[in-house]
């Protein structure tokens, strides 16, 4: 595999392979010196056309723990303002001899275009509303740690599915691994057409809560109100927000996930965010290991992981 643009590049077996590999990197991350020389001599560049703190830090930490060199192309502050085309930027970065580009872009499909213009591996770190494969992988890893398997499990994704790349990739990943998925949202926050999506749809969170093994809350963006997609955040929270009373309706074993950053008081109350069943920080921790696995798979396959990179 050359690029990771969507989970379809991996397939179910590929996803399982990454999750198994992630176990190894969780172990590496727990070492006293959490570093291996697997990608020594490799260069990974960040092309972030959209603001991102957590995904970028996560990738950067992952690359450093693999001993890769990193190169930060701070796109928003430089070339775009000077009018450089996407292709010119990509070819410029390519010419510097990078082995992989981690791309975040506000346009769906931008990483697909970029993959056609470079010999480097392209890793999609989120493109528009389309896909966020490494987020889905870390979500899968977190769920597998808590639920052991996906077969027969029921996961509800709640919130702004329409604009969410996380939801699109999660639906693909969870169903690929055998889980049942229900999308819970007002009709205005669902994609216009769900033909071909192997999901159920509900507008009634309360009736769904007792049936799930995991509840995935999406971030509700404030600007959705001005687009008349919802009347108010207050009304959204009343119908789709998770508070303590609703959380009490979840089965004992069910976990709550969120891609971050959380809007406390909107999709999730502060009390629920701090419950032990809310595994948001596990997701963050796992994100580094998953991204190590992805970088390793694309760039370093075959390198021995038992030695330490500290010497």
């Amino acid at each position, binding site marked *: 595999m050359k690029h990771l643009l969507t989970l379809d590049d991996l397939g179910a077996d590929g996803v399982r392979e990454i999750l198994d590999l992630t176990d190894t990197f969780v172990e590496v991350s727990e070492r006293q010196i959490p570093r291996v020389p697997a990608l020594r001599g490799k260069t990974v560049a960040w092309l972030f056309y959209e603001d991102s703190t957590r995904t970028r830090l996560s990738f950067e930490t992952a690359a450093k723990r693999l001993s890769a060199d990193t190169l930060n192309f701070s796109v928003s502050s430089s070339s775009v303002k000077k009018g450089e085309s996407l292709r010119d930027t990509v070819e410029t970065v390519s010419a510097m001899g990078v082995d992989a580009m981690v791309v975040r872009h506000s346009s*769906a499909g931008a990483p697909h*275009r970029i993959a056609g213009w470079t010999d480097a591996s392209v890793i999609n770190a989120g493109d528009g509303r389309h896909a966020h494969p490494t987020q889905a992988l870390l979500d899968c890893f977190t769920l597998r740690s808590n639920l052991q398997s996906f077969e027969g499990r029921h996961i509800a994704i709640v919130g702004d599915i329409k604009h969410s790349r996380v939801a699109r990739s999660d639906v693909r990943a969870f169903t690929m691994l055998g889980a049942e998925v229900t999308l819970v949202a007002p009709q205005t926050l669902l994609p216009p*057409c769900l*033909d071909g999506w192997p999901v159920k749809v509900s507008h009634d969170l309360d009736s769904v809560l007792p049936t799930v093994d995991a509840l995935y809350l999406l971030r509700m963006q404030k600007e959705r109100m001005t687009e008349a997609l919802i009347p108010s955040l207050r009304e959204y929270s009343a119908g789709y927000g998770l508070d303590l009373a609703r959380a009490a309706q979840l089965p004992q074993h069910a976990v709550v996930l969120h891609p971050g950053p959380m809007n406390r008081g909107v999709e999730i109350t502060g009390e629920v965010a701090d419950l032990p069943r809310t595994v948001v920080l596990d997701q963050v921790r796992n994100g580094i290991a998953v991204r190590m696995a992805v970088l390793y798979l694309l760039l370093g396959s075959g390198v021995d992981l038992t030695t330490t990179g500290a010497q």
Partner: protein
Amino acid sequence: MIIIKNGRVIDATGDRTADVIVDDAGAIAEVGADLATPAGATELDAAGCIVAPGFVDLHAHLRQPGREDAETIETGARGAALGGFTAIVAMPNTAPCMDSAAVIREVLDLGATAMCEVVPSAAITVGRDGEALSPMAELAGLGVRIFTDDGTGVQDDRLMKRALEYSVGLAPATGGAPVTLAQHCEVTSLSAGGCMHEGEWSSKLGIPGQPAEAEELMVQRDIALSRATGARVHFQHMSTGRSVQLIRDAKAEGLPVTAEATTHHFTLTDAECASYDPVFKVHPPLRTEADVQAVKRGLADGTIDAIATDHAPHTQSDKELPFDQAPPGMLGLESALGLALTELDLDIAQILALLSWNPARIAGIDDRHGGPIEPGRRANIAVLDPDHEWTITGEAMASRSANCPYEGKTVKGKVRHTVYEGELVVIDQEAQR
């Protein structure tokens, strides 16, 4: 002089094998069987070919003035001639916009030496801003017969009604000829931000969509306004099944409406967008297979009067952008005939009607284009080989741009020679200047 020998002559009056002689004044001199070659005449063998009135494109973006890096009137007209067109209606979304006598004169001036007739349309509203009417009578006085804000539709209902009312009284400026308001039907409050058809594919790809009803609501409105005003409305690039049905009903009612469909709307679907290649980005967007079939039925039963190209050149760097940032539009002039003959299950005469005499009538240029191949007519003629197989490539086209969505597609049917005003502008698929 030119003699076109042994061709199958097809026009609105019928179908026969005949030779055609064109005189030095640019008129058809003689049509008949086994004509003797006049002394000094250029002889073209058209055996196995069809000799037809030259094609008329109601919808071409020539980008001049303003974006000469993407296309010029000269290069656009060259591509048109290669595609068998002897007249093309230039859309007004140039920079500056074709909303004033000065810009219309410039386009006419540049078109005077082109390889086909360049027929300027003019904007309905000043700057295509949808706020004030352009000087329609003055522009009609310069020969403009089609007004359109193409690229956008006139959003304001009252303004559109006023424009239609005003268009009815332009006879003093046109010498009695009617003018037509052509609409790009798109309610922007519904389509804003949309880059492809809203549906299964847009939902999957995460590309913001334009719903079908953004087009259909404006079709519906303009039918109502045509009914109210008696004015002629031409519906540009119809792309949805319901739009086609609305026009079918309006025609049954006897309203003075006409419609065009583009080659891409009966050839390609929104599934193409899965490549994220903006070469497939176009407005109105590529729709579903059901819409493609409905457009084909509309072409077959006469609901849609004309095949248009919506030839829309864009430079490589403008198209080398993410899908949502790239400008909409695709090339069309040189591929139109091949696609029509390959994709449409229609009689050749019906296809020629859609490409030639129907659009000539809508453009108000049927005195010189699209008429029967008979003595006394202007010699605007396409000679085409309906069996010639060829593979479409953007780079091989005359356009300054190469944003062709049919790259590598093999089609059947190509223009061999084109005669424009008696001049052989294309011989054996080669532009002569």
